[in-house]
């Protein structure tokens, strides 16, 4: 296991200590627990937005707490949910009377704990909490009927949900309105990924699965969940076309649509490769008459040192565009 760390069981807490040292102007923690990360710039009267989830996905989840995006994040062990109690502590800190919105990925452990935390906040503190779940991974399950709970996993597309909801909250919209914006963003985003190598959870010490030297897995989840198909590694253009086809036909995205695109590295893939993919995405969407309002390229939701990348596409309307374009400043995301 080639990692620069001390004891594996201290991996998350030592990472957090470094984080607070590096970004004291933006983040701090509450409840005497470094895993209850909150904004250092609480804005009175604003709807608070909290997220949470396992570690190992930086910048996800905590990296988006700051100005104009999220207000708090409870931090779990690597690939493990944080506890309801931690979520509850974050909720209490970030509420300033306008209520709190939870935005998190569609994983059992996270759902159960966020639900429990919401009950605690309601029951013990009378804080109104609403939730929006990110479930953007086209590869993980079929589409869901209206009103039905999605069985799709949440992956990098949640960053768009954070951004739009964060800007709406920053504009001092009500909890209902911020939730509406978050839901709209979540409904309009689709993601698909490809993995080239596994990653190693520090406490486990060995890869969770293996992939042949010339293999890739299309649709693999960010914890190594089985994808759509495993096959010989193909060219960047072929991979891009396959992933984009699935994304486009799912919403579906159609001629005349305006979209935002996020090309996300899973950890070990150089950003050069991501730009090679950007080039092809632009060409393909251009052919379909879909125009790209904004590209985001880099690492937004990783799986430790996994090699591979994901593509997320969000359909925009005037409202989402306004919120997407609004400024934000967090330790990992700065937009003017």
């Amino acid at each position, binding site marked *: 296991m080639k990692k620069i760390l001390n004891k594996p069981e201290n991996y998350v807490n030592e990472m957090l200590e470094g984080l607070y040292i590096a970004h004291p102007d933006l983040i701090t923690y509450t409840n005497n627990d470094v895993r209850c990360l909150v904004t250092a710039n609480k804005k009175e009267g604003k709807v608070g937005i909290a997220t949470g989830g396992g570690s190992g996905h930086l910048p996800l989840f905590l990296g988006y707490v700051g100005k104009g995006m999220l207000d708090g994040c409870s931090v*779990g062990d690597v*690939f*493990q*949910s*944080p*506890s*309801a*109690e*931690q979520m509850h502590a974050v909720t209490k800190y970030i509420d300033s009377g306008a209520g709190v919105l939870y935005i998190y990925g569609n994983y*059992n*452990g996270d759902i*159960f*704990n966020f*639900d*429990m935390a919401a009950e605690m906040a309601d029951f013990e503190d009378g804080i109104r909490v609403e939730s929006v779940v990110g479930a953007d991974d086209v590869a*993980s*399950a079929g589409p869901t009927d209206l009103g039905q709970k999605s*069985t799709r996993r949440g992956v990098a597309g949640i960053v768009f949900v954070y951004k739009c909801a964060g800007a709406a909250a920053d504009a001092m919209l009500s909890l209902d309105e911020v939730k509406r914006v978050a839901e709209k963003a979540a409904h309009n985003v689709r993601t698909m990924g490809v993995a080239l190598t596994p990653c190693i959870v520090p406490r486990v010490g060995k890869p*969770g699965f293996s992939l042949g030297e010339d293999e890739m897995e299309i649709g693999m989840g960010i*914890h190594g*969940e*089985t994808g759509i198909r495993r096959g010989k590694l193909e060219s960047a253009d072929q991979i891009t076309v396959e992933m984009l086809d699935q994304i486009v036909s799912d919403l579906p995205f159609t001629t005349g649509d305006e979209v935002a695109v996020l090309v996300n590295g899973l950890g070990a893939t150089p950003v050069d490769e991501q730009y090679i993919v950007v080039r092809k995405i632009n060409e393909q969407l251009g052919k379909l008459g879909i125009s790209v309002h904004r590209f985001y390229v880099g690492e937004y939701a990783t799986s430790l040192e996994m090699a591979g990348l994901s593509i997320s596409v969000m359909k925009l309307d005037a409202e989402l565009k306004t919120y997407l374009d609004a400024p934000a400043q967090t330790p990992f995301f700065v937009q003017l």
Partner: protein
Amino acid sequence: MIVQDFLASASALMTENRDRLIDMDSVVGDGDLGLTMSDGFKAAYESIKESDEQDVGKLFYTAGKAMSVAVPSTMGTLMASGLMQVGKTFKGRTEVQTTEYAALFQAYFDGVSARGKAKVGEKTFLDGLFPAISAMQEAIEAGMSAAQVAQAASDAAQKGFEATQGMIAVHGRAATRGEASRQLLDPGAAVAALLMKAFAQSVS
């Protein structure tokens, strides 16, 4: 029944079966179940083992909260929800009669199903617990002893667990396997069987 005895047994059994649960969960899931259940029931037990609290409800609630802090995983949080619901239902009570055993585990069931929103037959923990509660109810109605009631429940839970082979998973990581999940045993239901075995040990 004594809450401490029940959770001591549960903690011991989960630790004994740790590797078996890891192996079962590794087939479809992430293999953490053995760790979370042994750590979780240990935390639950330790949170009350030296308590002189007499309120059965408060003991269960405290244990549930300790579990939820210690292992906030899928099953960890479900088990915490079950324990806490028992806590809420039995709050203010200092004793539990044999005739109430079914009600106690019904509360556990309700806590888990309120949190997880699964139904019986969907290849989860509930498919181990549900037949145990029915068996308890019958045994109580037949006027059996505490030990007999608990043993009937334990046997039924084990059968329920075995019957998960054949069901299609619709929750958690196993769900992504769809039809292919059918041939597998559900690890969460194995936990239910262990839990009822622990209960039987603690009242015998």
